[in-house]
């Protein structure tokens, strides 16, 4: 397995201080993102976090309102620059009356050094569907054809938006295997997902995004460590707004007399809690699931005074 040459080497694709607004929605808010050679990066975050917008900017579908977007040192809105990328979007439907092999041949023709047709079909797992018309395929098979179009040109960088949404477990595993193979062959991949296990299984680096900003960026192990929080419940009259500002508290909510705190570092927090409120009772400490911890990170460190979300 090839390791990144250097963390500081020239990035294949890069967003620097990029903002993008759609009408009233600020989809990206001054975001920085870089994909190094031979690296798989997962953009992880809830719907509406700005993942798809980041891909759209890097693949030249839209232009940034501010900041700089670069792809192989060029501008992704130039089609010649895009010969170095392959893209699989979330909701693309190909013309129904063309056959699978025709679709792949058409896209292969855009690239200077495409993969052989049979090889592309085999990698996407659609060899037996080559002569089928697109409208005669199941949804999962159509996704595979779209994947075939992304890889047919042997580009050094792939953008894949929510690759396994709607796939069954078996297809998802098969897809992961293909991604691992591409990565081993030195292809860089930027994928978006809202499945933590997918990011964990595939990525060298996870970029956690929420509300158009990068909340955390680390290896999967690092992200998991950050997210390995605890949930503390107890009965107390301590002021929740002040609690939320304590160092080890990532979120604080109240429900009647019960307060619930989330923390990445529970022990010092417990010590301080017991000191601050001698009447404190009914302590419960539970581990947070990874999903909960990331959701807490993704909604950022705000206090929710309502019922726990």
């Amino acid at each position, binding site marked *: 397995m090839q390791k990144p040459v250097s963390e500081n080497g020239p990035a294949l694709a890069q967003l620097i201080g990029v903002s993008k607004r759609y009408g009233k929605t600020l989809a990206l808010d001054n975001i920085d993102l870089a994909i190094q050679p031979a690296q798989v990066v997962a953009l992880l975050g809830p719907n509406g976090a700005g993942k798809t917008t980041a891909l*759209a900017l890097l*693949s*030249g*579908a839209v232009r940034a309102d501010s900041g700089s977007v670069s792809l*192989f*040192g*060029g501008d*992704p809105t*130039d*089609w*010649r*620059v*895009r*010969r*170095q*990328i392959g*893209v699989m*979007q979330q*909701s*693309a*439907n*190909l*013309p129904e*009356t*063309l056959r699978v092999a*025709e679709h792949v*041949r*058409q*896209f292969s*023709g*855009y*690239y*200077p050094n495409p993969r052989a047709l049979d090889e592309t079909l085999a990698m996407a797992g659609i060899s037996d569907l080559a002569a089928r018309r697109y409208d005669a395929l199941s949804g999962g098979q159509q996704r595979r054809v*779209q994947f075939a*179009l992304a890889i047919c*040109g042997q580009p050094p960088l792939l*953008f894949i938006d929510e690759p396994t949404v709607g796939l069954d477990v078996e297809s998802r595993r098969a897809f992961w295997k293909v991604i691992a193979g591409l990565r081993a062959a030195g292809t860089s991949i930027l994928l978006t997902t809202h499945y933590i296990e997918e990011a964990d299984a595939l990525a060298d680096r996870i970029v956690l995004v929420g509300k158009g900003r990068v909340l955390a960026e680390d290896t999967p192990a690092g992200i998991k460590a950050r997210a390995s929080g605890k949930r503390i419940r107890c009965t107390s009259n301590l002021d929740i707004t002040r609690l939320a500002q304590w160092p080890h508290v990532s979120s604080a909510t109240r429900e009647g007399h019960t307060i619930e705190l989330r923390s990445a570092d529970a022990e010092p927090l417990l010590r301080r809690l017991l000191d601050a409120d001698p009447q404190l009772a009914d302590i419960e400490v539970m581990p947070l699931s990874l999903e909960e911890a990331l959701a807490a990170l993704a909604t950022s460190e705000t206090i929710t005074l309502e019922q726990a979300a």
Partner: protein
Amino acid sequence: MTSNVISASPAWMLSRIYWREAGYEFLRMLRTPAFALPTLIFPLVFYVMFAIVLPGRWGDFDKSAYLLATYGVFGIMGPALFGFGVGLALERESGWLALKQVSPMPTGAYFFAKIAMSLCFGLVVVILLSIAAVGFGDVEIALDRWLLLVAVLLLGTLPFCAIGLWIGTLVKGQAAVAIVNLVYLPMSILSGLWMPLFAFPQFLQKAAVIWPSWHLAQLSLGVIGQISDVRYLLHVSVLLLTTALFLSLAAMRLRGR
């Protein structure tokens, strides 16, 4: 590395992309009965009915030759309006256009493919009409005149490609079919493509100048000698202006996304 890849786009590779794009566009439209059947068959059926089957003379006009020119215009309008209008509208809705926009396809190839497809279908329609006219309508037309007519009709697809393109930027999906039909059929009738304009009330005859299809019909009728005193320069200018106008409108819509 980047500059190498960018400079490595020799003309032959580019032209192969363009032609392949056109080939697949033609193939997939040919396999779409909702497009291929009406655009290829309707002009022929109407022509056979009005020019050949229905009896009657209109003064000095040679009915089957006259209607060859006007149904020729009707015939080339269909693929251009539907190919661009409905094609673009459907491709915007399905996400196909979005995928093409991030693929390494030169933007020009997309438009080239659609124009080439419209021209091919248009040419087939004109040939079908000509076979009917010469074979069953007793039309006598010299080869050079006929080639001139074909050239006029094919060049005449451009304003309708532009109008179709603009419609395709306005609406998405199947709505475009209705809009194109609302433009195509009334414009054809009011330009005298189905029946000569002298069968119409005076004010409709006068109003025909606003339709680009009327101007193209004047050119077509002129080159095959069915009408005289044709102001070629005027009609060509109107068609060019129409093309420029709708291309600009479409470009504004596409950029404004």
